[in-house]
């Protein structure tokens, strides 16, 4: 069986400009949220913004790409690949939501009022297909795909990468997700009534909704054979991916959670393990009423009520298309380091949710972990990561 190893990880979010800083903040329980500063808004919802993007990756009007490039650089360095992509069959598969949409408010406002508008935002949009732009910058010569599956985009992009590698379509893939905090979805989520005016509290009885965030999470995935050929060793590997649709509603999760359960079962089957082999789950945990209730019940059903769970959205906010990438990265690192941080915001158990997130930093022992993602449109995805040690 072809084993797909994780040889590099890069992350950027409000929780940290890189993985080391993020882990420090996890340990300190820091939650870097505040009012929106990236665009003018009167909406009362706190957000998790990335405060500093290095000058060299700042791209005017292409913040999602900038965030992605920060994480790509860290991941490539981690995999010792920075200057060695030439001649390799390198795929790029990235999830996003904002970067796929031509939703420039200034452009559209000008067009409406003047009957014409400068084409610069359109040109930026056409140059800014996330996977295409990253592939172009790092000169990757392999398959290239931008996944736009709403909030599971990053996780599904990693799942696509797994398929590419298992099918021999390429030898190595940069996979994950990136999204910027943008005015349009900020208004959109506000209109849905699922954003909290205080800091989010995933799985808590008194949860009031999500906080939006931004960031990027990138994994370098390669076949074990290829990694070995270039002298790389990695304990971590991507053991399984499962995806299933709710076929239920555009924004609400299916109440019985059948889609998520099917996704989990598929991922476990591909990994050739049982639910008892899983030592913790990094849950989607948005802190909305519906998501946490459905997800919590499914996790209890599949893994039992004592399964250790966290939601790192309390540190990053909901980063939409980046969430699956970031959370898979955090999950992998937790497995490697043997500890998971406290799940921020959680204080009071909810009688309707049979699982409880961890309230303090906890050691873990085991070889397999799961990261789940649920999305608008009823997408459910699960990724299983293994540790060979």
């Amino acid at each position, binding site marked *: 069986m072809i084993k797909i190893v994780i040889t590099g990880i890069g992350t950027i979010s409000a929780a940290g400009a890189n993985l080391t800083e993020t882990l420090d903040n996890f340990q300190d329980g820091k939650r870097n949220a505040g009012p929106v500063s990236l665009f003018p808004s009167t909406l009362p919802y706190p957000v998790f913004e990335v405060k500093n993007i290095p000058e060299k990756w700042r791209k005017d009007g292409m913040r999602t790409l900038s965030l992605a490039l920060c994480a790509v650089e860290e991941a490539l360095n981690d995999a010792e690949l920075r200057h060695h992509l030439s001649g390799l069959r390198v795929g790029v598969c990235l999830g996003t939501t904002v970067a796929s949409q031509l939703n420039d408010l200034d452009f559209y406002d000008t067009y409406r009022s003047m009957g014409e508008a400068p084409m610069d935002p359109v040109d930026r949009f056409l140059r800014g297909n996330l996977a295409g732009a990253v592939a172009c910058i790092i000169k990757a010569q392999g398959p290239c795909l931008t*996944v736009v599956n709403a909030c599971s985009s990053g996780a599904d992009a990693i799942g696509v990468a797994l398929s590419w590698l298992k099918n021999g379509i390429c030898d190595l893939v940069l996979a994950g997700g990136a999204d910027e905090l943008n005015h349009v979805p900020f208004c959109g989520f506000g209109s849905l009534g699922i954003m909290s005016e205080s800091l989010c509290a995933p799985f808590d009885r008194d949860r009031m909704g999500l906080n939006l965030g931004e960031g990027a999470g990138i994994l370098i995935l390669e076949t074990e054979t290829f990694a070995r050929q270039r002298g790389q060793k990695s304990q971590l590997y991507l053991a399984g991916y499962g995806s299933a649709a709710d076929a239920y509603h555009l924004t609400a999760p299916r109440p019985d959670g059948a889609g998520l359960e099917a996704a989990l079962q598929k991922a476990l089957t591909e990994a050739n393990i049982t639910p008892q082999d899983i030592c913790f789950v990094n849950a989607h945990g948005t802190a909305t009423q519906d998501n946490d209730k459905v997800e919590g019940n499914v996790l209890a059903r599949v893994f039992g009520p004592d399964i250790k769970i966290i939601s790192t959205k309390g540190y990053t906010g909901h980063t939409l298309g980046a969430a699956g990438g970031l959370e898979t990265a955090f999950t992998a690192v937790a497995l490697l380091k043997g500890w998971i941080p406290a799940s921020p915001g959680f204080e009071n158990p909810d009688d309707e949710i049979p699982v409880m997130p961890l309230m303090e930093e906890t050691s873990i022992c085991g070889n397999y972990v799961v990261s789940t993602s649920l999305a608008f449109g009823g997408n459910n995805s699960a990724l299983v990561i293994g540790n060979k040690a």
Partner: protein
Amino acid sequence: MNISGIGIIFTHGRGINKYDEALRQGWRKPSLIELPSVPNKQFPLYPVEEKTITDKGISGKTRRADKFSKMAVLAAMDALQDSDLKIDKKKFSLGIIVASAFGPHVTTFRFLDDILDYGEANVSPTLFSHSVHNAAASYIASVLDSQGPTITCTQFSLSFQQALILSKAWLHEGRCEYVLVGSVDECGTVMEYICSQKLKMAHDGKIKPFTFSARPWAVPGEGSVFFLVSRDKALKKYCQIEEITLGCQAIKEEDIDITILDADGIAGDESQYRNSLPTNAYIAGYAPIFGSMMTGSSFQCAAGALMIKNQIRYACPVQDNPYNVNICKVTKQAKMKKIQCIRYNCLNEKAVIMLQQ
């Protein structure tokens, strides 16, 4: 990977038979529209009419859906129906892959209207939820009650080709037994305005695939095509998709009956297509039937599949041929075993879809 069913929504109607009819009939004038932003000037467009996407059978489930989602749902539904496959007991074994260059941008702009007109606290949640790219895939899954994996992807000119590659991988791995893979794109007035600024619009209404121009003519179109594909040879109703190659990967060009050029004026310089002309095979290009679209390869692919199924060679709808290449001039019965469909993107990267009997 075998094509078992095809569903299509395009400017001349709905269904694979309607498409066959349009291919036999040849070129028809596009609609002419006046943009609010450019008064006294008309622009050509191949629109999908509202009546084409009205289907009382599913109106309950799609009552809030926009044009983008409706086009995709109907094309996907028709592809499944065309295949005669019943998925009641296979709801987890059908995958859905939707490719789109621009997503539901008309709804996105309507949502921006809300923000600009009513303020950020008074926008429509329905418009927002329909403005995400994967709304169409969600509707397809819901209408078909399919709970298999679902992916929506966007890669501008090569979205459909990438979707096909993923379909093949999913089937090969056993992630699903069947995949509904297709494309959907729409053209609203803002996009038409952008096209008028970025492209050379064909004011005579003709896309000319064989002029190999650095500034080719375009007539924007919209629509959706879906294919039901599987590894099951017994379900091969049309043909098989033998290979999808990208970039500099080598392709075998032996025994090809027709090379379809997906040159439609939307991706810029088309001079590269001259380098892809086969020495013996016929050349064709059917974009003048459905219009210029980043995801037009799916429509070309449907034409190829029909030609293999029906053992017919469709005449090129527009035959301007300054380089005197070997184009199909008349529609006639012919042996059709192998057809390739070629697309270049704006970076001059080549993609080939190879169809085989």
